[in-house]
């Protein structure tokens, strides 16, 4: 049986709720996103309504059995936006309830390991973006950063910057997902934002950019050049919105 949900996290939890009650053999159950679903005439399918009450029941049960760590594992893995997330989540929970308390550490179990890998990819990229995000000062003093991360990191990056840049007004804009986090030195709001054309930079912005570029270029030791190492540590897909120029190749700022 294929269960179809709306792609939201609550939807996935609602799906899991229904699947546990249906008690079909685990191998035959899949939980997939409705909008990408390609019907197969041999496999029956069923649309699951997103239900906040049911979703909360599942969430509470996860926290009760596997702690905040367990809940963090499933929410963070969701942000990896993997097409198979629903099925992975269902299988993880099936196995985890069987294994019992501490199941999140049982990496020898395939279902646990699968979700854990998604979790890992997301947290690793969050850590990288805390470093690679670049703000530009706009005419009105607001700091604006554009980024296009592989995973949906916005909500995970926000706490770091509210603490660190707590006395600044800033916007972090994920132009791949057309979402942005707005911070007014007090509260954060994450809401849709289309790409912004023709942003007007502050008077000083270009001079600080060139100071940074000058710093970046001077910091390298010529005799130890290694493109390979550089790309290992900072893959090319992250270069687009850097102010500096890792290999003197044009980025959006040159």
């Amino acid at each position, binding site marked *: 049986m294929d269960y179809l949900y709306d792609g939201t996290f609550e939807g996935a939890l609602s799906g899991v709720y229904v699947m546990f009650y249906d008690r079909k053999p685990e191998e035959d159950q899949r939980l997939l996103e409705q909008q990408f679903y390609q019907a197969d005439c041999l496999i029956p399918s069923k649309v699951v309504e997103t239900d906040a009450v049911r979703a909360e029941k599942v969430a509470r049960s996860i926290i009760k059995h596997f702690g905040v760590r367990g809940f*963090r*594992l499933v929410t963070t893995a969701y942000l990896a936006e993997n097409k198979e997330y629903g099925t992975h989540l269902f299988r993880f929970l099936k196995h985890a309830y069987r*294994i019992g308390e*501490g199941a999140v*550490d*049982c*990496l*020898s*179990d*395939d279902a646990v*390991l699968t979700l854990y890998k998604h*979790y*890992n990819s997301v*947290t*690793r990229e969050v*850590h990288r973006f*805390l*470093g*690679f*995000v*670049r*703000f*530009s*000062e706009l005419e009105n003093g607001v700091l604006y950063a554009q980024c296009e991360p592989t995973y949906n990191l916005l909500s995970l990056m926000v706490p*770091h910057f509210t*603490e*660190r*840049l*707590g*006395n*600044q007004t800033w916007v972090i804009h994920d132009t791949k997902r057309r979402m942005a986090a707005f911070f007014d030195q007090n509260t954060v709001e994450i809401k849709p934002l289309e790409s912004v054309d023709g942003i007007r930079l502050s008077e*000083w912005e270009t001079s*600080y950019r*060139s*100071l*940074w570029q*000058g*710093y*970046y*270029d*001077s*910091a*390298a*030791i010529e*005799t*130890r*050049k*290694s*493109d*390979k*190492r*550089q790309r*290992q*540590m*900072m893959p090319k897909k992250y270069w687009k919105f*850097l*102010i*500096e120029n*890792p*290999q003197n190749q044009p980025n959006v700022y040159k």
Partner: protein
Amino acid sequence: MTTLEKLQILTDAAKYDVSCSSSGSERKAQKGGMGNAALPGICHSFTQDGRCISLLKILFTNQCIYDCAYCINRRSNDAVKRTAFTPEEVVDLVLQFYRRNYIEGLFLSSGIIRDVNYTMEQLIEVAKTLRERERFGGYIHIKGIPGSDPKLIERAGLYVDRMSINVELPTTRSLRLLAPDKKRIDMIEPMKLIREKKASYSADAGRFKHAPEFLPAGQTTQLIVGATDEADYSIIKLSEAFYGRMAMKRVYYSSYVPVGNFLAPIGAGGPMGMLREHRLYQADWLLRFYDFRADEILTPESPNLDMAIDPKTQWALRNRSFFPMEINRVSFKMLLRIPGIGNVTARRIMAARRFGPLDFDMLKKMGVVMKRAKYFILCKGKPYPGIVSFDAEHLRQRLIDAPKASQLSIFDLYSGGIQGGERNGLSL
């Protein structure tokens, strides 16, 4: 001279200092101020040589009254342009770079101007302005100037997260030879002072609610390798003493890049120098995270690291009696001794073992590097498929790094390239 030109000169002059780590401090943002420190450290970019840029690493000035033979800023070097920042220029650069998320903070070092105390005061002035006037909470690392007044060292420690006093060369003899203006005792004394002050301030922190914090990220040091003829054994022994007796957080090794006015030993700064530096970092890792003693890594009889094989595998080959180890039974400490198993994997194995015995497939999925480990382990009493002999000589041949890998592509462990966060970020 424009700020840009100054920045270029004083960055160029500071870049041979290895450390760029921003880890070890959890400083919170001040009320109404900007900046905090992230415990695992954060890399903001990587230079073309693949090193992490975390801090704005600059000299306050590259003018210097000293004449150290290995140093590009030595008094007698006419080839470099000299300049100096004002404290305000540095403060502005730090704040403006930090707001834009270019950096984690500042790493400030300096040539010696007028005298050591005056130089130290300049560095303190910058740190003080950032903390008190600007209420800046980001990471600050400054150099302790050897020979400066202990009171200055203590004052600096209350403003900054980390301080480092470079030991420069492995032995007093080498120091006398290459850096005649510097004295060993001027380096060791402030290190001791820092260790004692840090201990007494943290005791206070336990007793009083608002006791000031002293160097939350501790102290580090750096030494140049390959400019003089010391063996690896004496270097590792020195590091062990620093970690133990001085409570050092890191010892950095810098393969000598010939910028000096003396005849550098053959191969200095070349690929072999880089490889040696890499092996020293591997040995250093064994001291810090793998519970090895220096005398287990090397001995006076065989005082140099094998360039063809990493030090942990070298140890395993010399101590065949411990192997093969049964993965499902040995202690955490012993797991760490197996080539191909690191701290993260060992923790995963310990956690997963509680749910039942592990087999080779599971180990692979959990991140064990079988290429090395397979020669040293058993799972449920059985060797890895295809392994017939655990004989040391036979193994050595198989475990030698391919020549290409040993030259340029193996710097994963090297000098803060990966910061704590990325390394340990795998645990929930």
